[in-house]
């Protein structure tokens, strides 16, 4: 019963919030509603018994990612309303609607099968975090490590792209030869 109420509430709220994220002209509103929607999604996780996932969602998304966006927003000075031109709304909404329709139809179909045995079953006896931990550090150890590399890549990428060294482009700096050529062409 609670689950039902919670589900519908959360569903309505997330849909609404994300709609704001997508439709709003104000970056701040969009971001805030995004953050709020993500919090509510973690609520879904809790309903579904994925406690650990819910926590991670809160920490990573609401914490880390939103913080990153906030910094970025400050950098871009994007607090003003944003003007967006050239949007072919009809096409966009038709595509969105169509994809929604297909996805909904697809998911509304009896996709679930009773007869499928879980490969990595959850254990009622132990907590979700332990359960997750066991699978993550046995079966999914390699992806986990790769994800670490991926985060390293992201870190390096973020650092060097935002770094000062990028300000002076060697690709466009003209050496002596280039200048000779340029002057030659100018003649």
């Amino acid at each position, binding site marked *: 019963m609670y689950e039902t109420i919670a589900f519908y509430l959360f569903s309505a709220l997330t849909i609404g919030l994300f709609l704001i994220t997508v439709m709003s002209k104000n970056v701040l509103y969009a971001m805030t509603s995004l953050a709020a929607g993500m919090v509510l999604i973690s609520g879904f996780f809790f309903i579904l018994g994925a406690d650990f996932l819910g926590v991670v969602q809160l920490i990573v998304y609401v914490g880390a990612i939103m913080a990153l966006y906030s910094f970025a927003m400050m950098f871009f000075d994007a607090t003003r309303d944003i003007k967006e031109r050239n949007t*072919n709304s009809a096409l*966009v909404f038709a*595509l969105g609607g169509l*994809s929604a329709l*297909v996805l909904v139809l697809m998911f509304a179909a009896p996709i679930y099968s009773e007869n499928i045995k879980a490969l990595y079953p959850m254990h009622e006896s132990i907590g979700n975090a332990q359960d997750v931990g066991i699978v993550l550090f046995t079966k999914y150890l390699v992806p986990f490590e790769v994800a670490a590399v991926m985060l390293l890549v992201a870190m390096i990428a973020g650092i060097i792209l935002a770094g000062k060294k990028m300000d002076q482009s060697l690709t466009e700096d003209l050496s002596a030869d280039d200048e000779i050529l340029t002057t030659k062409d100018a003649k």
Partner: protein
Amino acid sequence: MMETLVYIALFAPFAGSLFAALFGMGKRQVFVGIVASALLFISFVASVMLAIYVVKTGTPIHVMMMEWINAGDIRIPFGFVVDQVSVTMMVVVTLVSTVVHIYSIGYMDHDKSFNRFFSYLSAFVFSMLVLVMSDNFLGLFIGWEGVGVCSWLLVGFWYHKPDQPREVNPSISPSWAANEAFIMNRIADLGMLIGIFIIYWNTGTLQYDEVFAQLPYLPQWILDAAAIALFIGAMGKSAQFPLHTWLTDAMEGPTPVSALIHAATMVTAGVFLVIRANPLFAMTPEVSFFIAALGTFVAFFAASMALVNRDLKRIIAFSTLSQLGYMFAAAGLGAYWIALFHLAAHAFFKALLFLGAGNVMHAMHDELDIFKMGGLKKVMKWTYLYMGIASLALAGIPPFAGFFSKDAIIETAFNEGTYVLWIILVVTAGMTAFYSFRQVFLTFWGDERYKQYGIHPHEMYKFVLVAMSPLAVLAIIAGFFQPWFHEFITTLLPDYEMSHHTHELILVLTAIVLAFAVGGIALAYKMYAKGLKRDPKVENSFIYRLLANQYYIPQLYEEMISKPYAMISEALWQKVDLKIVDATVDTIAKFFYYTGDGVRKMQTGNLSNYLNWMAVGGVALLVVAALSAVIG
């Protein structure tokens, strides 16, 4: 021994041609002409020796030189046969050629391309000998084409002359006339080739003897088809209607050429073919009758055009055409030996006539209009004599050669019961006499009109006149050899005897023909002996203009064939090839190019569009997959 003679007879002219060709681009060298003539004389001697041999033994000589085309099942050798028919032709050809060669030394003495001329002329003789001596149809075809090319070279000998409007010069230019001759002959040659194909695929061989041996086993329609096809070939070479226009235009060539090729030898090749293939034509009576009818028609048709022509050489050319018609009439009626006899006799007097005309031309500085001549007998006695003899022979006045041969043909027509043909031939004989003597009188008698044009005619060189004498003698006496020839030739050719009924009437018939001939001469005398009297009313009459313009046939060909052909060609090129075929290809290429130009517009550079494309693509994939799922 005899084989060597065959080769000597055949290759001596070829050697002469090559010899002359060596000096072809050099300065005029009289010895070139002498050597070529000497070689031809050798060939003539060899031919005569062969003739004697054949007469004596009565057996043909068959020489196999080498293999030529061996492919699939076809075996075509270079083989030569010297039998009664071919040896007759060889003697006639080499004799006339020798005379013409010697004549040419005189006639061409001022020409820059003297050496080249002899090269061509000897090459022609060689080709002609190949034509008559070959033992198979394809060998004959080699000669056939060879004489065609030589004719083309010789007609177009003065290639540097410009094209003129048809009104000024009906033959336009030598090179034009040469091309016309070649192309018209080619049309006929296609027929000839088809005939060869028919023969090959039905008998499996092209050797005369083997082919003729198999003829009785072939169905009639195939025989008819083969005969028709071969006759089409003959029509081209012998300038039968409707492929006759080239012959008169071919008079653009030097006169010795006209004498040799377009009177004595090459044009008779068609007749020769019919005679050669007599077993075939004998088995196809309908075709043969058609040949006879066409021959008769041409005889009359050509004679009619000769009546009003003013051009010395063209008159003779028309008369040649007319005489060829006689020969075909004879051959078509089955009197092959008579046709061959007329062929030989005609060769002598017609060559003589042409050479005489050449003398006149030489004297008149290439003036050919008989209206501008007259009274030449004073300055050109010998020529006058020769041309008189030749004209008498042509007109069929006894005892000249033409009387015997032509009379026999006319009798044959009567004998066969084809009285219509007979009447036409008789009338034509009268017309022949008329136009021959019209020409003689206008040229040699009457007032000296040439003086108005400041021409000082002179007689030809002595040696030339001497060289012409054998022809003159033959034109006179050849007729007396008729019985002897008859006996000789009918060992090979089917005999043709007049029926009893005809025999009884023979004097009457001869008298009728003679009456027409003499009447023609008399009329000519009355009209032209005193000089030229022109009557504008006559000259403007429809008939006169029709005849003078050769029934407008050259114009008709020009308007109906040449011009449309050129127009269609141009249209095919400009409209079809460039605008349709090629344009289609380019359009396909452009289609892709412009598609590329169109499609690249999707590449707007705008990320949002790209994202939309992704979504659209996803949806499209969905549709395709759904369609596929539904259909599959």
